[in-house]
């Protein structure tokens, strides 16, 4: 149990360090870094590597945005098994639906209630 937390911390932290290096050394904008990470997650999952990382690091791999790319591909592949090519389109948002839906909902509600502080 303790080791689960330890590896979540280390792996999650290291993924963020890669992001920080992309920002500071390669001078990418945050939008470029996030986009690259999502693509990286999808590509790693294409080689079945991301699941291994999740097994090892738990939330250290599922919380960073890389897991978004991984989940998109997972959903797509699950439906592709059943429906062929069209399944990719059917399944692509299946696993990420909760994340996107809640981000829209909470973002919207917060925008209604709060005022920007500046």
């Amino acid at each position: 149990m303790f080791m689960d937390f330890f590896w979540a911390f280390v792996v999650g932290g290291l993924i963020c360090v890669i992001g920080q290096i992309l920002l500071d050394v390669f001078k990418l904008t945050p939008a470029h870094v996030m986009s690259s990470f999502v693509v990286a997650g999808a590509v790693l999952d294409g080689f079945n590597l991301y699941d291994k990382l999740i097994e090892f690091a738990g939330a250290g791999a599922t919380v960073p945005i890389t897991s978004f790319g991984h989940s998109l591909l997972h959903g797509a592949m699950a439906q592709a098994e059943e429906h062929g090519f069209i399944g990719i389109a059917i399944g692509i948002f299946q696993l990420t639906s909760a994340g996107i839906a809640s981000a829209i909902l909470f973002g919207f509600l917060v925008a209604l209630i709060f005022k920007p502080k500046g």
Partner: protein
Amino acid sequence: MITKENYAKEIKKYQPKPKLFKNCLKAFIVGGLICVVGQALSVMYIELFGFTEKSAGNPTVTTLILISALLTGFGVYDRLGQFAGAGSAVPVTGFANSITSAALEHKSEGIVLGVATNMFKLAGSVIVFGTISAYLVGMIRYLVQQFL
């Protein structure tokens, strides 16, 4: 002698460099801690609410997004971001912050044209590139599975 041609090179010494090690350390700690919170949430959902290791992912992510949206509303997340850099941007909470902050900032232009229209101004690229890359990788994998 500073000239137009060598300007960028000559003035390097006056431009403060990003403190790479310090920034990376802060990103590591804050990013790591957000993942630890995620881990704790997922353990909670498994132990107390009967989720499985796989199905606990959704409520965990949803809870993190809620926390991030609230911290954005209270004006805390932008300060965390200045401190932690990629440490608070890379986790899914950063994704939620980019959506919430854009929605909140454009509230003054109304709910439809302001909040709703601008919500994905920053987060849109993540969804676009995620979808395109997952589509491409998915097609390749599907083809490989079918024909090899």
